[in-house]
Every structure is written in structure tokens, then in C-alpha cells.
């Protein structure tokens, strides 16, 4: 599959990256408007500078790297991986200029966390951040969740011949409709309708519980974006517990769960087939694993006798399970509380929930329910094959949108990716322990980064070692793009360098 990297590959990559950056420049207009409304003139300057530099880069790329050809699969995978790096770089400009970060590495960490919908944050003094920057932070998780490339698809790239392939590269490989532009548009329609309804619900809850009306709308929309894209950022240090509101928490849980559904599932259900919800293999797997992890946490917390009433267990424990399992990372307990007063069984339940993650082709991270489902069905299939006589021929099917037969290729792929995830969890843990953190915390944080969850036990802070920040950035990136496109990028770059050396020697 690996082949020599040509000049044309570079050209086409830069061309499409330029297009995507240009698209992002337009999204920066929304926080700019917020800045002007709230008279945050310094933040407004940050965004104008951001917009101008991305427009310049985008235009320059499109001018000097102009090409009419659509990218092939190989190229689109490189575009997917490459555009993330550049998108982070340009989106970081308003972050960096805001002065809320200690170093550029911290900025890049937060950006990667936003784009991968992780939700770990190194931002300092988050309660004094401007409304514009808050808007931008949450918009990035929202945009990152729907895929930067999907955004570009929906609005920018007219010739979509190769665009579907870019989406495959971004791990959203469900084609909802034969037409690719339509697929992207559908994803956005689903997200935008939910944004409207969800923001309204959250804003009403926040207003009822004491926030002023304009702040309830802002906070409502931010927290919705954070929940729906399974991101986990919040405009306040205390995250969800800032609001002290049961209703608000239930609404957030609702959107966390809905945000972790497969977009193909949303599409089928929204097309008038709600029964799919009960038949889908991912939903079944999700319900089973969520129930098991809930039992762990409920058992652990109840046995430890920390909480004296049921509502406490629900709001502190079960909310965290849902948040962990959907890969969101909003929390209504304090990071240090997890370290100092949680029982090991409950802690383990949260770790397992984080590892498993939500559905494929959604914004959730982790193994993904589809893979777990296929893997287990494959396991049963193999066992049956060994038990029954060799002459027996039987098929095993699963239901995901339509009934599909399990093939050994599918099981192998699912197993491989699950193994890859385990490897990055382990890798992050090793680096965390090497940096001097206790094993429990290092494991928790590493899983949280690798599975794009964003819960924290307090390791992630501006003062953590740079090497650990870089490790988490890499694991977040790998986990989000599900390895393959990054392997292609790394492999081809390595090959190109190898070629260059060979050429030089000659």
C-alpha cells in the first residue's frame, strides 16, 4: 500500500488543506461577533488576526498549489491527518493571543483536545476567559466533532469526487446517502437541529436555576456543544457542578447519550424508522456495557457508604459513568475527590467505561460499541465452529442499519483496532508513571486522553511535564483518527525521507 511520495501528493494535500483552513476562517466570525457585542475589544483583535492569517494561508495554498484532480484514497488519508495539524495551528492564534496559556505547547494541547473532542484543558483562569474565546473553545469541539473535513464538504468543496474518501480517512466511514455532499449536509442538519433544541432546553434550565438570561443562553449553548460533541469543556472551573442544578445535569446526560450515537443511526431514525434504536447492535452493546459499568460504580459507592441518599449516587456517580462511557468528560465531582474519596471498584468502573466508548462514526472515542459487538459475536462464532462438526456451515449476522453477515475480516479489523487502543492506553500510562505520577492516576488520565474522554484526576494541569503533554497530544490524535490515516501519513513521510536519502547517496 505504501508508495513513493510524489510532488503532486504534496500539492494536492496543501490545496485541500488550504481549502479547509479557509473554511475555518469563516467560522471565526461567530466569536468575533460575540466579542463585539460584549465589548471585548482585545479578544476581537485576536480573532481578526486569526481570520486574516488563515485567509492568507488558505488563499496562498489554493493559488500556488492549484489542481483540478480529486484526491485518491491514499492522498485523502494524508489530507485528513495533515489538515488537523494545520487546523490546530491556525485555530490556536486567538488562543495564544488571549494570554490564558503558559506556553504554546499548552495552547496546542488544548486545541488538539478540542478538535479530538477530548476535553482535557490546560487553560488557566478559565472563569475570567472572554465570552468570545469561550465561544471559540466550544465551537471547536463542536466543529471537530462533526469533522473539520465534513464542514469543508458541506459548504466548500464543490467537486466532491474525492471528498468521501477524506471522510473515510476521518473515521466517519458510514455513507448515509449515495451522494457525499448530502451525507455531510445530513450530519450538519442533525447537529444543527439538536443544537437549537438542546441550547433552548439547557438555557431554560440555567435560567430557571438562577443565571441571567443572556448568560443562560451562552452557557446553555456552550454546555450543549460540549455534551453533544462529547467534548467536555466548560466555561467554569467547576465544570458541571458550577450550576448546582439537577435539571441541567439531566439535560446534559441526555445529549451526551444522543451525541454518542452513530450518525448513520441518527439518520435512519430521523428518516422515520425509530425501531432501529431497539435493533441496532451498537445500541444493544452500549446498553449492556453501560449497565455493567453502572453496577460497578453503584456497588462501589454504595458499599463504601460515602453517600447517604440515592440522588447523591445518581448525580455524583452515575452521571460520571454516562459521561465516561460516552466519552464526554463533563464532571460534577472534583478531580481531587476522585483521588481521595472514591472507592477502587467505582474507580475501575469509570476506567472501563472510558475504555469502551460510544458508537462508531460518532464523536465518542474508545473501542466503540460496534467493534465490541462484532468482536464478541466473532468470538461466539469461532467457539461454535470449534464445537460443531466441521461439515456444519452456519452464518452469524448482526444488525446495524441492515442485517449483515460477520466475516473474519471484520472481526480481525475490530480486534486490531481494539489492540491499538490498548497499546496507546498502556503507552500513556507508562509515560505518566515515568514522570512520577501514581499508577492509578496515570492510568486514568492516559485512558481519558487516548479514548478522547476528558475526565481528569488532576494530572492534567499546566505544570505537568512537557513530555507528558506531548504524549497526550499524540494519543488523543491517534485515538480520534483511529490510527490508520496517521499510520499512512507517518509511513509515507518516512518513505519519502528514505527515498531522499537514497537519492542523495547516489
Amino acid at each position: 500500500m505504501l508508495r513513493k511520495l510524489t510532488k503532486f501528493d504534496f500539492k494536492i494535500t496543501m490545496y485541500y488543506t488550504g481549502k479547509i483552513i479557509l473554511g475555518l476562517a469563516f467560522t471565526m466570525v461567530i466569536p468575533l461577533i460575540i466579542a463585539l457585542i460584549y465589548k471585548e475589544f482585545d479578544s476581537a483583535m485576536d480573532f481578526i488576526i486569526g481570520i486574516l492569517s488563515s485567509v492568507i494561508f488558505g488563499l496562498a495554498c489554493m493559488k500556488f498549489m492549484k489542481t483540478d484532480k480529486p484526491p485518491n484514497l491514499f492522498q485523502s488519508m494524508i489530507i485528513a491527518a495533515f489538515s488537523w495539524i494545520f487546523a490546530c495551528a491556525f485555530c490556536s492564534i486567538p488562543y495564544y493571543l488571549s494570554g490564558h496559556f503558559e506556553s504554546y505547547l499548552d495552547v496546542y494541547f488544548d486545541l488538539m483536545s478540542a478538535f479530538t473532542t477530548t476535553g482535557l484543558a490546560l487553560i488557566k483562569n478559565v472563569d475570567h476567559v472572554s465570552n468570545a474565546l469561550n465561544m471559540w473553545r466550544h465551537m471547536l469541539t463542536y466543529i471537530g466533532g462533526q469533522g473539520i473535513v465534513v464542514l469543508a464538504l458541506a459548504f466548500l468543496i464543490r467537486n466532491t469526487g474525492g471528498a468521501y474518501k477524506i471522510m473515510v480517512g476521518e473515521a466517519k466511514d458510514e455513507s448515509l446517502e449515495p451522494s457525499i455532499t448530502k451525507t455531510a449536509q445530513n450530519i450538519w442538519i442533525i447537529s444543527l437541529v439538536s443544537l437549537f433544541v438542546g441550547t433552548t432546553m439547557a438555557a431554560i434550565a440555567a435560567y430557571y436555576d438562577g443565571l441571567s438570561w443572556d448568560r443562560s443562553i451562552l452557557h446553555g449553548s456552550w454546555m450543549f456543544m460540549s455534551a453533544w460533541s462529547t467534548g467536555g469543556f466548560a466555561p467554569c472551573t467547576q465544570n458541571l457542578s458550577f450550576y448546582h442544578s439537577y435539571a441541567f445535569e439531566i439535560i446534559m446526560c441526555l445529549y451526551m447519550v444522543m451525541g454518542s450515537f452513530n450518525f448513520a443511526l441518527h439518520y435512519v431514525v430521523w428518516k422515520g424508522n425509530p425501531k432501529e434504536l431497539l435493533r441496532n447492535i451498537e445500541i444493544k452493546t452500549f446498553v449492556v456495557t453501560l449497565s455493567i459499568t453502572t453496577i460497578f460504580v453503584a456497588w462501589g459507592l454504595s458499599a463504601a457508604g460515602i453517600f447517604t441518599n440515592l440522588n447523591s449516587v445518581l448525580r455524583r456517580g452515575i452521571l460520571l459513568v454516562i459521561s465516561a462511557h460516552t466519552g464526554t468528560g463533563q464532571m460534577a465531582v472534583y478531580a481531587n475527590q476522585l483521588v481521595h474519596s472514591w472507592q477502587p471498584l467505582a474507580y475501575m468502573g469509570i476506567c472501563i467505561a472510558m475504555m469502551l466508548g460510544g458508537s462508531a462514526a460518532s464523536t465518542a472515542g474508545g473501542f466503540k460499541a460496534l467493534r465490541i459487538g462484532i468482536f464478541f459475536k466473532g468470538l461466539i462464532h469461532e467457539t461454535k465452529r470449534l464445537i460443531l462438526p466441521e461439515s456444519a456451515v452456519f452464518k452469524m449476522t448482526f444488525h446495524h442499519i441492515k442485517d449483515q453477515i460477520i466475516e473474519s475480516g471484520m472481526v480481525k479489523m475490530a480486534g486490531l483496532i481494539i489492540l491499538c487502543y490498548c497499546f496507546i492506553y498502556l503507552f500513556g500510562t507508562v509515560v505518566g508513571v515515568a514522570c512520577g505520577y501514581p499508577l492509578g492516576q496515570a492510568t486514568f488520565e492516559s485512558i481519558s486522553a487516548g479514548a478522547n474522554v476528558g475526565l481528569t484526576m488532576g494530572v492534567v494541569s499546566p505544570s505537568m511535564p512537557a513530555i507528558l503533554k506531548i504524549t497526550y497530544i499524540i494519543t488523543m490524535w491517534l485515538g480520534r483518527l483511529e490510527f490508520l490515516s496517521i499510520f499512512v501519513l507517518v509511513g509515507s513521510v518516512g518513505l519519502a525521507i528514505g527515498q531522499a536519502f537514497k537519492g542523495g547517496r547516489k
Partner: protein
Amino acid sequence: MRRYIAILTLAIIVLVPQTIFASSSPPVYSVTDLITKAPELDGKTVTVRGEAITEALERNNGYSWVNILDGPSAIGVWMKNDLKDQIKNYGTNLVKGDIVEITGKFFRNDPEADGELDLRADSLKVVESGYPTPEKINPLKVIVLAILSLVALLLFADNIYKNKKKTQEKKEDFEIENAIHEELE
């Protein structure tokens, strides 16, 4: 080095509150201390000092939630509305909030607030008054902005010029074609 600092901070965190504890008035804790030492401090009367942030969340029953920020951590404080009314400024990006000193009962899992780690205030004192901190435009940013606009303008100008040229060429082509047609007819 980092490790020694960590040990030192830990030692300070553990030792300092104990020395203060000996005095008769409720000891002052940082919010981070409250969270890390929650099991020991549960149910005790403590004092915290911090900045009131964002907004008070007023509930229907004459009480409010006020969130207090102290260093890297923040905590929710449940208080009567007349205590809350003493706070005039809340911290946002444009305002530095009032620094308040609150004495109250600390709960690790407050059963009335569904297990939240919080403080139920008995008394409140505004230690430092807040003030507005409007954003000022950084002159360096203006310079960067000017340079960027210039570059963008150049790029745009080039494109517009080319576009014009193209349309003109097209026009000329069209005219030539027309002329040919006319001649043929």
C-alpha cells in the same frame, strides 16, 4: 527537583493547616485543601477566602449558590440571600470579583445538595472590593493586524486583477467568435 518541590508542597499542605488549627477561630483553608482533605474536614466549621465568580444562582427558597474561586479550585457556597446581597461584583473577564471571606460548615457529601462537596455559609465578609477590568487593545496586535491586512490585500488584489483579465479575455473571445459568426452569415 520537581519531586522535591512536590514533597515540599505536600508537607506545607499537610502541616500548615494543622498549625492554624490550634487557634480558636475557625481555621482558614484554601479550597484545594478542602477538596483534598475532605474526609477529615467533613462537617467542621471552616473559613475560606476567594473571589466570587460569574454570578450568584438565586433559588426560589430565599437561598443562593455563590461560587468562590481560590487559586486553581472553586467551590459552591450555599447561603441566604441577605448574605449574597453583600457581594456587589462577580468575576468575569471584564470584572475582578469581590474577594470574600466566608465562614461556614463544610460538607464532603452534602445530603441536601445531593452529595455535593460544598460549604453552607454562616457569615460573609467582603475583604476586597472588586473593580471593572475593561479590555485594552494591545498596540503590538494593531501592528500585526496592519501587516496581515496588507498581505491579504496584495493576495486579493492579484486575484481580482486576474479575474478581471480573464473575464476581459473571455469577452474578447466572445467578440471574436461573434465576429466570425457574423462573417460566416
